[in-house]
């Protein structure tokens, strides 16, 4: 099959993921969009692995590692999101501004 097809699909999926990360307010939806981006990366890795056929099978092995690390990352991210929800009552990422760089005198909109 044509390699360009896989690359194009991967680029498109990455684009969708970037859009999701930028536009979503809910932290869980942002995490999902990040997963989409990682999926796009994996597709590229696998496609190029089949192109190069090196002894290390780098592409596919890296794809496995990415899946594993993404799982750990997402779980931890969600744990943090749950803590944020407990402390702030919301997981809208633009409402949680505790660490924002601004004048401490302004109104605390975090909670």
């Amino acid at each position: 099959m044509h390699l360009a097809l896989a690359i194009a699909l991967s680029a498109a999926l990455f684009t969708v993921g970037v859009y999701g990360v930028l536009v979503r307010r809910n932290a869980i939806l942002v995490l999902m969009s990040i997963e989409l981006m990682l999926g796009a990366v994996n597709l590229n890795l696998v496609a190029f692995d089949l192109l190069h056929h090196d002894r290390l099978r780098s592409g596919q092995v890296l794809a496995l590692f990415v899946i594993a690390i993404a799982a750990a990352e997402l779980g931890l991210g969600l744990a943090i999101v749950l803590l944020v929800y407990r402390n702030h009552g919301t997981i809208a990422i633009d409402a949680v501004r505790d660490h924002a760089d601004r004048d401490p005198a302004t109104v605390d909109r975090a909670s």
Partner: protein
Amino acid sequence: MDHYFSGYALVGLLIVLGIGFVATSFGANALLRPSRPSPGKQSTYECGVEPTDGGWAQSYIRYYVFAYLYVVFAVDAVFVFPWATILATVGFGTATLLEMFVFLGVLATGICYTWRKGVLSWV
């Protein structure tokens, strides 16, 4: 090449067939069944009592901890499979075995940690 693709083509066909089966039976169901909706029938079932505040129930975070435990371990468990298929081949022996044991040992440490922390005993 042939075997690989024809095998998965068969699986794909079976999935299509299964979807067809489900669609047919839902279709037959739609033709054969009566349809007499009424507000009482369509309200949420709560053992005959009037349903109260929404269809939402609070859940324990504990579920999340267990779920995450699973995710972490499932991620390693998948590495057992490639390992399993090559252990008997020439060139992989004790060293590969020990590598896996180190890997599993680190994870066993993880489960011991959660055990000690009392996470594994519910509430």
